[in-house]
């Protein structure tokens, strides 16, 4: 039996194609990228070996620093928002709506599947002030706030991005965290209620600790995804005004393809990978526990 399950030929047939594609499309290019980072140039002019000069430039470059700052700020704000809103929604689904939560869950979730460019364009029209005032500006105008351009200043543009991304993703985190909450045995909740715990105290002392695993997973997932933000920002502001809302992923794309610096762009890609790597190590640690112990809840 073990011989059958250890059949070399079968393993090759099953695993081979996937491994081939994976190596060709992922492994080789990653190694190659490290190579690119040691050179300067582009496809037309050819490349010159510059050793670690690109990395030296990376740490001194003010625009890179600004992009990294922006990415970190964005990640912090959006992850907090996603988890807080997601958890609140999950609480709403579990304790308030209970059986009838399915409809609301479906409704709040749908922005998750929409193409990000479509959502970006929609929000740019919602908050538009040219060629005519969109809904938000019109409503604010009624409330006495003079029309202004949300996308002309870094601060307001940032908050529109946050609003848009929260709109897009809160349903996802709501469902994700909800799945953790419904696993909490009702007996424990009943017991706690009998002991007098209600409302917020119930959440804080019983629900929160028991849903910790899924909460931690969600936080790590959220952080990892937010660090790589690209689509939504390109669609909404394209990094503007100026480069005030440019995350490091967009800066890398522009450097490589618009400013034709493959070497420098590759070094930025490595920077992005390092940032993601640190977060993803946690994912691996927590999931490896499952692999060896065997079987999650």
């Amino acid at each position, binding site marked *: 039996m073990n011989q*059958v399950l250890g*059949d070399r030929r*079968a*393993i090759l047939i099953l*695993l081979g194609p*996937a*491994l081939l*594609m*994976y190596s060709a499309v992922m492994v080789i*290019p990653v190694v*190659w*990228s490290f190579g*690119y980072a040691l050179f300067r140039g582009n496809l037309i002019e050819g490349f010159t070996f510059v050793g670690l000069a690109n990395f030296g430039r990376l740490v001194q470059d003010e625009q890179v620093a600004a992009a990294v700052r922006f990415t970190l700020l964005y990640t912090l704000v959006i992850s907090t928002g996603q988890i807080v809103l997601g958890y609140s929604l999950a609480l709403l689904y579990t304790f*308030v709506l209970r059986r009838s939560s399915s409809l*609301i869950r*479906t*409704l709040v979730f*749908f*922005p998750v*599947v*929409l*193409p*990000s*460019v*479509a959502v970006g*364009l*929609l*929000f740019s029209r*919602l908050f538009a002030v040219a060629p*005519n005032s*969109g*809904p938000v500006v019109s409503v604010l105008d009624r409330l006495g706030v003079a029309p202004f351009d949300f996308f002309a200043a870094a601060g307001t543009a940032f908050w529109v991005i946050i609003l848009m991304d929260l*709109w897009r993703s809160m349903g996802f985190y709501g*469902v*994700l965290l*909800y*799945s953790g909450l419904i696993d909490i045995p009702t007996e424990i909740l009943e017991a706690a209620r009998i002991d007098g715990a209600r409302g917020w105290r119930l959440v804080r002392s019983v629900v929160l600790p028991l849903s910790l*695993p899924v909460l*931690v*997973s969600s936080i790590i*997932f959220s952080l990892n995804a937010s660090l*790589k933000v690209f*689509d939504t920002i*390109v*669609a909404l502001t394209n990094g503007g005004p100026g480069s005030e809302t440019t995350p490091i*992923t967009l800066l*890398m*794309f522009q450097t*490589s393809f618009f400013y034709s610096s493959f070497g420098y762009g590759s070094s*930025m*890609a490595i920077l*992005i*990978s390092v940032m*993601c790597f640190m977060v*993803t190590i946690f*994912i*691996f640690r927590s*999931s490896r526990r*499952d*692999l060896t112990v065997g079987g999650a809840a």
Partner: protein
Amino acid sequence: MAGLPAKLVILLLLVIDVYPLFWLVSTSLKSTQEFLNTPFWSLPQSLDFQNYADAWTLGRIGTSLQNSLVVTIPSVVCILLLGAAAGFALEVMIWKGRNTVLLVILGGIMVPSQMILLPLFTIYFKIGLTNTLWPLILTYIGHGLPLTTFLMAAYFRSVPRELFESCTLDGAGVLRSFISVGLPLVRNGLLTVALLMFFSTYNDLLIALTFITSKDMSTVQVGLLNFQGEYGSVLYGPLFAGICMTVLGTLVVYLFLSRQIMQGLAGGALKG
């Protein structure tokens, strides 16, 4: 406990989630002149579908949708086949070094697309694939494999090993048992992963932007980004119609499969 505050919250959620769509659809039925000159909350004067026609032809939404499907469906099918097979081999089969391979594949989940763009750019050109959709398909397959393999391995793990062991005793080869026993058992997992891969491929922007070189090959996301009228102008009427069409497309798929999506997430491997 569904008192007034809860009802208000639900109402707020409804407004936040539904109104933008409603506004989108209603504005898309207005002509550009009407859009520019009437207040945002007014309903369209008539149900004029000219915007949709313009978006389909001038704005090339039709071509974009076609390209997106041509790229997404084969990619997802391949990802599922290869990923399920790999997941089976890694989880059910017993051989030395499978943990190492699993580790290597897990590493792939964390690699951001940026790392692979530039070299792939060069490789595809050398092989002569640039004016086709192949770079997209190949990249999506390679890029989607790590996560798919990982998830399928997790789904296979939840299947009791006895089922596989017993069928091999019956004399069936491993490959046969994979196809006739293994795959049906993880049917639900396959569907969930298929949905996940479908949406992430369909909605991808970074890879599409890198490898799409002509306006006739744009996928939906790139097509929307470059949505322009004849003289580089922004035609607002068709723009709204274009956004609507792409949104409604995914919405329809979602509504049919929402239960599956939810279940997949709820029972998913992320619970920790």
